[in-house]
């Protein structure tokens, strides 16, 4: 039996776990055990999938016995399995952190009977979005994860969370409606919604219609991925949620949008029809996002703005549609999921130890808790792209690909990328100087808890442990950057080639259409 046929379990296991935890809502201990157990099982399965795809290549599973162009398929290739593994590592770490927080605080902030099932449903939605080979099923995956995220966002129902939740829900629903309209129009134009089949049939469409469908999908995914003109909702809504929820949102939700963009750009609309506008959008996302970050005085808001800004790098890599650019983008996605999540988890710890996440109230944390300072410093430098770390390697890959492409626009983006990286360092250094280095009494309104040097109990091991594990995982991405870059390069080649994907779904006889502008494939070899 082929291992890939177990792929649907990556969706089914978390849903089963959710059902069980829901049934066990009177028993918090059993809930914790079940949810952590099911997520660990999912992670193991996904590692196995990644290993099998690495050796055996792309594989697909048809669900319910319906033949490919009609039924829903799930496709496991190197990109999707890499995303699955990274996302499960993140969600497992955040789950343990949240459990630790719940045990330490008595679950006032996050009612545990709701939290665990919703969280597992969120994971199922993310896995579904990564695995699916069907456009409408992708929509369903998005809706599963979004509906779960609405609940997590407004957990506890306090005033600020409800206010933030309203913006978030309305914007997400509008983007989903746009996505659904795009699906309907694609079905109207081609008569299919299976992605492999679409890759063949979209090719025969009139260029005007094709561009219309392309732009509709990009706008829908652009809202979800928080790309600049459509990113205003993110810094407005993320910071108010509980720390673990913000962490998992920041790591995963926008990246699912990026994943969908990468998938549709490479599989459905290859060639460079919209590359120039995408590059402009990437540049604006990077610069506007990071300038917003510099203005903030709340660490969570600052990090949300850097999140928006760094989505620009991924869009840049995608917009080059060269193997080198796409490989760097894939690498960058894996790096950014890890680093951004660990930074938000550390911010949760800062909030506990310092009593606030506002830079006007913090000071002297480096002396109060050197471990916390270390946990913040490593991912922060990683995010800013300081040399040994994976952030530097990812950015370097992007810049090399940009220079290899050599158009004036890509060179502008290379410059913009460097500037953004420096400004990220500036924003992060401000946090470091204020929250960690200055004396507590130098803060404008120092939080009273900063005087209490003995309050070690504020940092429970169950919360520091997963955070430290994620930081170590981030460093491991640096140490094993070679194999990871090779994996990213392989998946970029496969995605731009499309043959493996289409053949695995539709059988080896399916004819893969020529890409309209083959010269875009030669932009730099890695």
């Amino acid at each position, binding site marked *: 039996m082929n291992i890939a046929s177990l792929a649907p379990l990556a969706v089914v296991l978390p849903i089963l776990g959710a059902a069980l935890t829901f049934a066990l809502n009177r028993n918090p201990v059993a809930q914790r055990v079940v949810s952590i157990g099911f997520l660990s099982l999912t992670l193991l399965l996904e590692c196995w999938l990644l290993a099998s795809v690495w050796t055996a290549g792309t594989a697909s599973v048809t669900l319910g016995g319906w033949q490919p162009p009609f039924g829903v398929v799930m496709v496991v290739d190197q990109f999707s399995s890499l995303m699955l593994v990274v996302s499960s590592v993140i969600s497992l770490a955040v789950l343990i952190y949240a459990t630790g927080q719940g045990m330490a605080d008595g679950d006032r902030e996050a009612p545990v009977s709701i939290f665990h099932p919703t969280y597992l449903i969120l994971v199922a939605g993310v896995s579904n979005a990564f695995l699916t080979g069907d456009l409408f099923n992708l929509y369903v995956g998005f809706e599963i994860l979004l509906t779960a995220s609405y609940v997590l966002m407004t957990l506890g129902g306090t005033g600020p969370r*409800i206010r933030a939740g*309203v913006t978030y829900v309305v914007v997400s629903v509008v983007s989903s409606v746009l996505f659904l309209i795009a699906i309907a129009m694609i079905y109207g134009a081609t008569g299919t919604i299976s992605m492999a089949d679409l890759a063949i049939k979209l090719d025969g469409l009139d260029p005007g219609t094709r561009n219309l469908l392309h732009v509709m999908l990009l706008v829908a995914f652009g809202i979800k991925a928080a790309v600049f003109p459509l990113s205003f909702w993110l810094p407005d809504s993320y910071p108010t949620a509980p720390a673990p929820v913000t962490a998992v949102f920041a790591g995963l939700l926008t990246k699912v949008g990026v994943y969908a963009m990468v998938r549709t750009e490479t599989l459905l609309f290859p060639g460079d029809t919209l590359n120039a506008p995408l590059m402009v959008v990437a540049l604006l996302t990077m610069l506007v996002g990071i300038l917003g970050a510099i203005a903030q005085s709340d660490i969570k808001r600052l990090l949300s703005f850097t999140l928006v800004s760094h989505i620009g790098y991924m869009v840049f890599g995608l917009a080059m549609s060269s193997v080198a650019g796409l490989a760097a983008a894939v690498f960058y996605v894996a790096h950014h999921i890890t680093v951004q999540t660990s930074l938000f988890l550390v911010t949760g710890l800062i909030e506990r130890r310092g009593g606030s996440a506002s830079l006007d109230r913090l000071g002297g944390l480096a002396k109060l808790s050197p471990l916390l300072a270390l946990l913040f410093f490593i991912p922060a430098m990683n995010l800013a792209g300081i040399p040994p770390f994976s952030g530097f390697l990812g950015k370097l890959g992007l810049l090399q690909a940009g220079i290899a492409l050599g158009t004036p626009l890509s060179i502008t983006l290379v410059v913009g990328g460097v500037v953004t990286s420096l400004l990220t360092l500036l924003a992060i250094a401000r946090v470091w100087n204020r929250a960690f280095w200055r004396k507590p009494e130098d803060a404008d309104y120092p939080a009273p808890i900063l005087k209490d040097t003995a309050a070690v109990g504020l940092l429970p091991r169950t919360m520091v442990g997963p955070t430290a594990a994620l930081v170590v995982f981030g460093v491991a991405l640096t140490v094993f950057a070679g194999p990871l870059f090779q994996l990213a390069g392989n998946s970029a080649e496969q995605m731009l080639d499309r043959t493996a994907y289409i053949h695995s779904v539709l059988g080896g006889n399916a004819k893969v259409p020529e890409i309209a502008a083959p010269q875009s494939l030669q932009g730099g070899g890695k």
Partner: protein
Amino acid sequence: MSVNLTLLIVMGVLYACGIYLILELSLTRVLLGLMLMANATNLLILATGGYAGLAPLFNKSTDPRDYNDPLPQALILTSIVISFAVTAFMLGIIYRTWALARQDDIQDDAEDRRVAKTPSFDAEDDSVVPEETSEFPVTAVTEAAKEGGPQ
């Protein structure tokens, strides 16, 4: 593919009303707008199914071309269920907003307002330091050197 004109006009009107309502400040109207847009989209999906036909229940003696396209209907069913869940959730949020703030309007983000009001001059980052604040001030070091110098 033939298209039903009535369906298209109804769809257009629903979209127009939906978009108008979404731009309102009142949350209840925003919710109504979202519901109208979701239903307009359902009509759009229905329209992509092409001509009206028999219910797609398999019968060997029927010509396949007499059947309706079943896929759009399956899609609409899914989308109705999803928009039902989201509408229920939105209603919950709106009720909660009312319970907390006694108003139905979308509220501003207080932190956003605060950041917007913050002047670009930041006392800690930008001001000229008027006096020596270091633990090892330059003047003390030079004085010590002068005192120690002649010996």
